[in-house]
């Protein structure tokens, strides 16, 4: 019996990766949920908005690197992030002006806006590939690890290693800061309150003198920021490839829906539910069980609930189960 080793093994392979992935999903899902709450449609272009913002950040990072600007042990991309957000914000405001505003004016049904966002998705998709190409791009620099598995073993004398990548720590810290700022903004500032009012009841908000175009613009700005931050964190932690960002759309939507579309708190919870379920259900518990159980009970098999091939099926199974019992998601969102 060795609880310490069991916990370290579990943290190394389940807890830390799932928390990092969960934070990235949560930030992505927040963007989706804000659009749904305020503009009232599912924005399919969100994955590619993330890709576009990340691409802008990557290009600026490279420019900084070529000029010799660095951020010490932290990735240069964090310095480039504000500029990336600005570029991304410019693009989403442009698409709003050019496309979504027209459909808002004619009071189009949400499904029409969804289809329009699908079109925007393909255009952004092409734009990103046109500018930076479809290949993998690495832009992480600075220290890779806070502690590597080998160092940890030496330090503690345990037989299990624990690796903590600096990108994982940065992801978590950034996510906490961003979420705290967002909630402060929504709950305490005048603009935030007007956004929530507009989301709750559009007509009442209009009557009380809230300018809808301003609310929409602020929403897009926040969404561009969230999307770019989520994308850059994901890219730093893994790597940047346009196609994987397109694929991220599914788990992000799953997170937002599980949590309750339109509910920011739900988006965060949903992100972590999806991330943990993907990693935990497919984890082989052999090692952990071997440490915890008495030797005679130690399992021979892998003690794996299902093969890792099914990891995407897991998040959708959870989505279905949640929707069956709570149609508006874990936290009360708008019904879908």
């Amino acid at each position: 019996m060795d609880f310490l080793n069991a916990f370290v093994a579990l943290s190394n392979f389940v807890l830390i990766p799932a928390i990092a992935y969960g934070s990235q999903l949560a930030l992505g899902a927040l963007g989706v949920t804000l659009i749904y709450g305020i503009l009232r449609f599912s924005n399919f272009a969100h994955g590619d908005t993330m890709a576009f913002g990340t691409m802008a950040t990557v290009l600026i990072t490279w420019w900084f690197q070529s000029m010799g600007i660095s951020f010490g042990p932290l990735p240069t991309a964090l310095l480039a992030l504000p500029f990336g957000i600005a570029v991304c914000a410019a693009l989403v405001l442009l698409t709003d002006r050019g496309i979504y505003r027209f459909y808002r004016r004619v009071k189009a049904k949400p499904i029409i806006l969804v289809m329009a966002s699908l079109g925007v998705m393909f255009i952004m998709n092409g734009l990103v590939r046109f500018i930076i190409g479809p290949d993998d791009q690495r832009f992480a620099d600075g220290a890779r690890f806070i502690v590597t598995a080998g160092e940890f073993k030496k330090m503690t004398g345990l037989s299990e290693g624990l690796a903590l990548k600096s990108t994982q720590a940065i992801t978590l810290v950034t996510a906490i800061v961003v979420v705290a700022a967002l909630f402060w903004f929504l709950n305490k500032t005048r603009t935030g309150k007007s956004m929530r009012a507009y989301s709750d009841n559009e007509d009442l908000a209009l009557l009380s003198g809230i300018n809808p175009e301003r609310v929409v613009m602020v929403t897009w700005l926040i969404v561009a920021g969230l999307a770019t931050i989520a994308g850059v964190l994901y890219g730093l932690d893994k790597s940047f490839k346009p196609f994987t960002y397109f694929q991220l759309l599914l788990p992000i939507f799953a997170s937002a829906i599980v949590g309750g579309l339109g509910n920011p708190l739900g988006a965060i919870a949903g992100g972590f539910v999806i991330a943990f379920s993907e990693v935990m259900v497919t984890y082989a518990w052999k090692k952990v069980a071997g440490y915890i159980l008495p030797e005679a009970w130690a399992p021979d098999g892998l003690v794996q609930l299902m093969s890792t091939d099914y990891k995407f099926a897991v998040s959708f199974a959870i989505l279905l189960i949640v929707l069956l019992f709570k149609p508006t998601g874990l936290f009360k969102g708008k019904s879908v």
Partner: protein
Amino acid sequence: MKKLMMATAAAALLATGAFAGGHSKEVKLGVVLGFTGPLESITPHMGAGAELAMKEVSDSGKLLDGAMVTPVRGDSTCIDAGAATAAAERLITADGIKGIMGADCSGVTGAILSNVALPNGVVMISPSATSPGLSTAEDNGLFFRTAPSDARQGVVMTEILMEEGIKEVAVSYVNNDYGKGLADSFQAAFEAAGGKVTINAAHEDQKADYSAEVGALAAAGGQRLVVAGYVDGGGSGIVRAALDAGAFDSFHFPDGMVGAKLEENFGSEIDGSTGQHPGTDSPGAAKFQELAGDAFDPTSAFAAESYDAAALIMLAMQAANSDDPQVYKDKVMDVANAPGEKIYPGELAKALDLLKAGTDIDYVGASAVELIGPGESAGNYRQIVFKDGKITTAKYR
């Protein structure tokens, strides 16, 4: 109008007749490769390799007393069995080819073999289809390959690991025909040799995050992680995640993983890792490179095998003294294997002379061809080991 059409048709017929008459000794060979699709970056070199052999034979003027060999290209697409079948069908019925150099990917090769080559009775020699399933496919003696079956690679991998004293490994394979076939044949061979495969799990190619996969692999444990994937895709992702989590520090890489990109991605982080890929130190490889010159890249994957595949078809024709596939198909194994005089690239004219004189030849070619069992290459592998962040040759086997 009708008259005009008739006249045109008649003229066309005459012209074709005259054309055929002028080249009465023309032998057409199909070059069916995935010129579009996931292998489009290496197929131009493969096609050029095959056409180099055909040009060599045409220029010598010694095949079947001066026949010209004309290549006709067809696109196998690598993944679309329907398109590949249609392309091969067209080459046989419309162009009248006498043999197929191809196809490239295992899936389309099997489709062309059973739907086109078999019913039409045309010989097919694939330079690059490695699926073990093709060894047992029904072929009426028409199908050969200058690439080894992955069943063979599984055995070679087992030998290498056993010699290194590795008895327990975890296996991660890319979820497709190549990865699954290789992982299964390796597991069978490794367990037969007394080793233990702790886990044999798939990974999807081109994903960004492999922490769940690596978690399962690490839990199963093993002295080494075998990564049967692609170096440009998920294979590198698995290795990166395994290194980051400290799950494995040495790896074994089959052919899909061995490439310059591996050094670039990991460098000395994976020192001590081993691997193998088809390769030979036979003098044929160097001669082939010399022969190709700057026309194409002779070291590109399967370019040498393509040259050999085309050469074998033409040498078998000469040995049988006929370009009828039903006749020369029985000669392919004879010209490829001992006994006889060894033939290297650039010596096809000499080989044709020898065959005409009734002397046996043993075609070695660019890839040290030795056909075994159901007409597939015995397989020569280059065993590699990582030293100081570089791929170094341990030996050839």
